[in-house]
């Protein structure tokens, strides 16, 4: 017996008032399968939510997500302990200064040198949350491992029940000061103290949802109110991005979801 195939879909929606280029959530899913393409081998996802009060948050979130995805692809154990995840994040931070030097060079060459108001923020660095997830099949089921820094969340749903919420379990816990990976923070021991890890097994019919904070907060609030947000979200698998965006816009307009970038990944097993 082997694990049933998995199916993955992904969405990225900028906050109202911003265009796609200004979205500071980053999302890497590997392999990049279409929603109806069965995945039978290992797959992974990394979501990073760039902090809006930092400069170059989008670039740092992208760099961090890509670095972690590459690292997990080569070493799945990266998400099995805070220490291993912290080492990978610190490694990404070590690449920031050279990236930033190239960026500053491009700005100068393009006739738009740094303005006075950018310098303090660039000295402080860029910041982002991290949720890194590895999903691997064994003979009977799928095993997921996740590492999180901050409030980007994983939800594991089985038989119309929320089986596990990670790392945030209470909608009241979301705020404007989550733990963040800084582009100038190479202190792996400090990072490790703030990283949480979790694991679980997925049977056929189970679903994993990964979401940045605005959607995650809505998900937990809906669950707390006795509703089943997973049934709403799984309907978007295979639908156009515009359908999902319209849904997010509707929730924001109703005041049920904070106006923030949304990154969303949906793994459906079997």
């Amino acid at each position, binding site marked *: 017996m082997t694990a049933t195939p998995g199916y993955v879909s992904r969405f990225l929606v900028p*906050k*109202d*008032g911003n265009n796609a280029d200004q979205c500071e959530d980053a999302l890497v899913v590997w392999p990049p399968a279409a929603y109806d393409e069965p995945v039978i081998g290992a797959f992974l996802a990394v979501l990073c*939510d760039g*902090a*809006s*009060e*930092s*400069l*170059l948050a989008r670039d740092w979130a992208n760099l961090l997500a890509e670095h972690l995805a590459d690292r997990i692809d080569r070493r799945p154990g990266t998400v099995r302990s805070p220490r291993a995840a912290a080492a990978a994040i610190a490694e990404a931070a070590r690449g920031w200064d050279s990236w930033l030097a190239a960026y500053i060079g491009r700005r100068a060459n393009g006739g738009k040198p740094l*303005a*006075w*108001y*950018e*310098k*303090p*923020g660039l000295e*402080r*660095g*860029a*910041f982002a949350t991290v949720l890194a997830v590895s999903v691997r099949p064994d003979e009977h089921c799928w095993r997921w491992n996740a590492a999180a820094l901050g409030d980007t969340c994983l939800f594991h749903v089985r038989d119309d029940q929320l089986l596990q919420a990670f790392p945030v379990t209470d909608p009241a816990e979301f705020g*404007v*000061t*989550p*733990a*963040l990976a*800084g582009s100038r*923070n190479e*202190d792996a021991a*400090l*990072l490790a*103290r*703030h990283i949480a890890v979790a694991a679980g097994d997925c049977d056929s019919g189970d679903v994993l949802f990964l979401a940045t*904070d605005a959607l995650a907060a809505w998900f937990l609030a809906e669950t707390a109110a006795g509703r089943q947000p997973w049934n709403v979200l799984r309907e978007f698998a295979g639908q156009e991005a515009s359908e999902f965006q319209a849904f997010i816009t509707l929730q924001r307009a109703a005041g049920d979801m*904070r*106006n*923030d970038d949304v990154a969303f990944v949906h793994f459906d097993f079997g």
Partner: protein
Amino acid sequence: MPVTYTAEISRSNPGCFVFLVDQSGSMSDPIGGEAPGRKADVVSDAINRLLTELSVKCAKEEGVRDYFHVGVIGYGQSVGPALGGPLSGRDLVPLSQIADNPARVEERSKKVPDGAGGLVETTASFPVWMTPIANGGTPMVAALGYARRLIGQWLDEHPGGFPPIVLNLSDGESTDGDPGIAAGDITSLASADGGVLLFNLHVSSVGGTPVEFPDTDAGLPDAHARTLFGISSFLPAHMRTYAAAQGKKVSDGTRGFVYNAGISAVVQFLDIGTRATELR
């Protein structure tokens, strides 16, 4: 009871700051206590720091975002716009224009940690929008009336916005009457998200211990300080939380009042998104 002071601050839903700057003749007197300088120097320095902090807070790589509309109004010999340079004569200005148009940018030296336990000298940009002025009487009532007109118009255009904040920087010696009624006229204005907030920075020659965000006027040194404390708004709950996070003692009675101390902390009371905070 409706939840207040929770409106999103964004480019499509900006906030509003009006700074009232005392430019009267008495502002040429030295500030009391150990800090050197004239009161006029202290308030113009405070304005330049506030505008710098606001700009840095709202800076993104494409420029400063217009999360706020900002007015700087002087009162002394006359009452009116007080920004210098290209923005001279303007009332409320989108923040990006403030950031892009200081009268000048000075390079000042500062000492920063060298990473090995010592300090190393470096330079930091210090933009200047206004220079000290000390001339004439202290028409604080007229200045509060000017702010009320600006804010009333702004609220007509942004009825659901985060409530405007008026920050009055003065030595408190009003010469055109008791500012209490004019202050009440301002704080009786409201958006759907809450009442307008009036904060005060009192710079005084009397000296004594600097006070930040007190909940009583018991320790204040004179009647001017007590007057300005009395017209200052209570800090909304989330601002009290941020003040407490900065190490200040707060209670339900904490007011937006500072005596002979820095006021730029108020910029950090405002949420424009996820904060860039280091792990500890």
